[in-house]
């Protein structure tokens, strides 16, 4: 050890962060106290340490006062550790001779007694000063970034992100769970507030994705496993059996026409169950890829009663007119099985979208009880020219509605279901009101809590709807019932609501009720979160790294989020966010490398070879060397959790940045404050 006798010279800085810290912590007093501690040669308080002058101050002091350690007490290290490490490095020191104290998020913002907060700041600062004295010089390791990217989810967010990456010349895998990309947007008729035809603006993008040479599109596929780390992920994708050879199918759809089922008779999920399809089908006319698939649950050529997790069994009972129709193309393959593919990518964009609130959960609104109660998404299909009714609004009982009630905030802004505002329902309700009026001329009643129309042209659209003679009743609907009190109500659905503007309880009979169901996380959001090592907010949407400054980043470097999987948002916001996610991924790819936090562990020569640590490592980074009879850590595989270090019975494993002595000093420090 060359520097064994080197004097420790610590520079300490406490940041006011404007009033954020200074209002609750007496910063000059903290600086005064720290100045009295051993090894501290300089102690300052400063208004904004993260500002350029603040960082320059550190650099200047390192040179002028021959500092060899730096401590900054300011905000969370998750926010500015990198900033100050860089400043330390710019001053000519190894960046890891720096330590940070969190006196904002963990102190000034959460405490109310100035004296107590000041004492706490002193204690935390003392701990850092004692810790930093033990710090060692460490090297940052650079790891190359695989330039290929993965986009998970083929809705408008995934499509946008994939296209942005592909246009920049990067190879992209786009994995979509459904047989076609397009997501929810493909189901919409028009988009608010401009009333663009959703298909007209989306389908060109879909086919662009489908044919782009840089994009490998895997529909009807799911990510099943993710290994590795930023820049170097190994991803396993399950490609579900379509019973169609994707390379051979031309999308002619002759098989569908020739299917032994002359009429479609199975539930068509793309049309929200309002229409029917055959066992061999294509989800919708503009589906991308233009490849059919066979549903083994209902196809006659498979045995009935497939149990979950089991492979369908071919029965060979059908005449197989589809195979005949396919002819020489020979694309139908009843023996196809799910296949697992492994790909290597450097960055991942998760754009797995949302699901709509299940209206059955609010039985007072009668969905599933009264046939003429619809969800908004069903109405999207109902008014859609390519929908099950060809765009005619024909109710489930065959009638055309003369009056329609649209109930807002179904499953939103409600403590019993979801507390959040789903952001899009007010606007899509206005859009549906407009479309329904256009299609049927019916009287339209909107029942709302508040009209929320923030967005370019949104308020104007609301005004237009008011002018069109739609009724707006402010009040949360109590119930939808077929309990008729008057003659006029007989045979109708009665909406009971307190009109909070007029101060009366109203009963409004209508022919059709539309429930503006809110947006919620996908059912398997928790599984997906674990797969990609992300976090979820308490409501279940994926958590961004920082709500303002890192809205598309996650806590897992190299994994980005876009679209409604992060929270409800409309199409323009989703597209913008997808672009931001792609830009983040591009920045990483074009940098070409990532710097890894040097917090890996290593094994000392004194290791006795007891092998206790080996089973503890989830990354199999620890192995037993049969020649030295000791354990060794493969630094490339170590991710720096320190579990082996905490468990080594003879103290023979050291974790860089979190050495035992560093932590013991920190413990001593936090408890030594006077």
């Amino acid at each position: 050890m060359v520097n064994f006798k080197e004097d420790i010279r610590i520079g300490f800085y406490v940041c006011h962060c404007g009033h954020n810290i200074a209002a609750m912590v007496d910063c000059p007093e903290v600086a005064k106290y720290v100045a009295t501690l051993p090894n501290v040669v300089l102690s300052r308080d400063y208004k904004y340490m993260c500002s350029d002058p603040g960082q320059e101050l550190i650099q200047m002091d390192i040179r002028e006062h021959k500092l060899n350690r730096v401590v900054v007490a300011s905000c969370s290290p998750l926010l500015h550790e990198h900033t100050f490490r860089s400043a330390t490095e710019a001053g000519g020191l190894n960046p890891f001779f720096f330590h940070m104290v969190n006196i904002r998020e963990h102190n000034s913002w959460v405490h109310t007694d100035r004296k107590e907060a000041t004492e706490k700041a002193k204690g935390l600062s003392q701990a850092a000063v004692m810790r930093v004295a033990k710090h060692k010089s460490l090297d940052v390791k650079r790891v190359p970034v695989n330039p290929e990217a993965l986009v998970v989810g083929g809705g408008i967010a995934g499509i946008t992100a994939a296209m942005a990456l592909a246009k920049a010349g990067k190879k992209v895998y786009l994995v979509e769970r459904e047989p076609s990309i397009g997501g929810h947007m493909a189901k919409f008729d028009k988009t608010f507030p401009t009333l663009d035809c959703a298909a007209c603006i989306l389908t060109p993008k879909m086919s662009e994705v489908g044919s782009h040479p840089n994009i490998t599109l895997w529909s009807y596929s799911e990510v099943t496993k993710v290994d590795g780390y930023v820049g170097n992920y190994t991803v396993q994708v399950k490609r579900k059996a379509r019973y169609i050879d994707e390379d051979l199918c031309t999308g002619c759809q002759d098989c569908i026409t020739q299917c032994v089922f002359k009429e479609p008779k199975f539930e068509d999920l793309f049309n929200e169950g309002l229409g029917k399809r055959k066992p061999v089908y294509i989800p919708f006319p503009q589906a991308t890829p233009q490849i059919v698939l066979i549903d083994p649950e209902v196809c006659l050529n498979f045995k009935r009663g497939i149990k979950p997790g089991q492979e369908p069994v071919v029965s060979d009972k059908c005449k197989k007119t589809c195979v005949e129709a396919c002819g020489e193309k020979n694309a139908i393959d009843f023996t196809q099985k799910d296949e697992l593919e492994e790909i290597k990518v450097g960055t991942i964009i998760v754009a797995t979208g949302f699901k709509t609130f299940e209206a059955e959960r609010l039985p007072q609104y009668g969905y599933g009880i009264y046939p003429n109660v619809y969800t908004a998404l069903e109405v999207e299909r109902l008014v859609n020219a390519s929908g099950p009714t060809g765009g005619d609004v024909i109710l489930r009982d065959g009638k055309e509605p003369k009056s329609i009630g649209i109930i807002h905030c179904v499953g939103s802004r409600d403590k019993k279901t979801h507390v959040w505002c789903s952001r899009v329902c007010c606007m899509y309700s206005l859009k549906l009101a407009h479309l329904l009026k256009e299609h049927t001329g019916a009287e339209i009643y909107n029942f709302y809590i508040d009209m929320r129309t923030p967005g370019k042209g949104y308020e104007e659209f609301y005004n237009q709807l008011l002018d069109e003679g739609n009724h707006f009743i402010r009040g949360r609907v109590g119930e939808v019932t077929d309990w008729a009190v008057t003659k006029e109500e007989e045979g109708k659905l009665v909406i009971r609501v307190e009109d909070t503007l007029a101060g009366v309880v109203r009963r409004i009979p209508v022919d059709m009720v539309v429930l503006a169901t809110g947006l919620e996380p996908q059912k398997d959001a928790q599984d997906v979160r674990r797969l990609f090592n992300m976090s979820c907010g308490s409501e279940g949407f994926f958590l961004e790294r920082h709500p303002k400054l890192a809205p598309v980043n996650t806590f897992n470097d190299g994994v980005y989020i876009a679209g409604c999987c992060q929270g409800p948002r409309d199409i323009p916001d989703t597209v913008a966010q997808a672009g931001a996610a792609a830009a983040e991924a591009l920045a990483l790819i074009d940098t070409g490398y990532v710097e890894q936090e040097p917090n890996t562990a290593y094994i000392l020569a004194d290791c006795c070879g007891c092998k206790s640590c080996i089973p503890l490592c989830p990354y199999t980074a620890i192995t037993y060397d049969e020649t030295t009879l000791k354990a060794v850590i493969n630094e490339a595989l170590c991710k720096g959790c320190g579990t082996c270090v905490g468990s080594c019975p003879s103290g023979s494993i050291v974790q860089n940045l979190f050495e035992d002595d560093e932590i013991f000093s920190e413990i001593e420090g936090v408890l030594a404050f006077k």
Partner: protein
Amino acid sequence: MSKPKVAFYWCASCGGCEETVVDLAEDILGVVEKVDIVLWPVAMDFKYKDIESMPDRSIVATLLNGAIRTSEQEEMAVLLRRKSQYLIAYGACAHLGGIPALANQFSREQILKFNYEDCPGMVNERKTRPQLHFEENGCSPHLPEFRNVVRTLDQVVDVDFYIPGCPPTPNLTKAAFDALLSGKLPPKGSVLAPDSALCDECDRKKTKPSDIAFLEFKRPHQALFDPEKCFLAQGVVCMGPATRSGCGAVCTSGNMPCTGCFGPTSRVRDQGAKILSSLCANIGPRDEEGINKVLEGIPDPVGTFYRYGLAKSLLRRKVNLPTSGNGH
């Protein structure tokens, strides 16, 4: 020139350490040839006054074994410290507290009450307890004070070196003498034994699998041990991985698991905490119920993990016992 003076002394100990000195066998003759033994109560007749009258630092080295429990032991430790150039804590008790330090789980009163009243076989109708002073036949003997706390030697006086073990092995003892006599001494405060853990010299190491996951812990009386297989692989708590080597793996060679008498390596502050950490982390089940089921096999963690090291552990003693007060 006179031969260097050496002293042996014993405090709260079983006498086993003295045996080790004798176990040097013929080598002891070599030692006796080179040194002048000035104090060795177990074998030779010297008095307190003899030592007291010696000039300070006139003894080259004192090997003191046993923990410190009484005022007499403290006084001797202080005296010998003053008279010696090197004070060596000899054996687990002086080094770590040893078996006597398990008494740190009980209060002074609990111990006296048990030993002079409740212990089976005790006949003491008047419940007489030892007194510091008493008069008998015109004499007024003075007895040492029984302290509240059992201490290691270095918790009472400054210690230069440690020779670990219960007892230390002849090899280590001889090596220590060699170092002393040749003047080739390591830095002050060193433990005179290797700094890796026991597995390093245990033959059973090669039989330990790399994927251990404990599903149960057995205690030594609950099973017949495979004489070759790693004890941990047999589900038996073995302190070896957390214990300094140097003993030559005598226990594991004798088909008994290591109980930790050599104490931790220099890199560990609390031997018990470390073996707990290692054993527990490698338990198989993940749910509390399953984990606790496995842990039923360790009914007395303090006695198991701190068999020799309680006095030297981070907490030293059961924390809620009556503290000071001399309990006269």
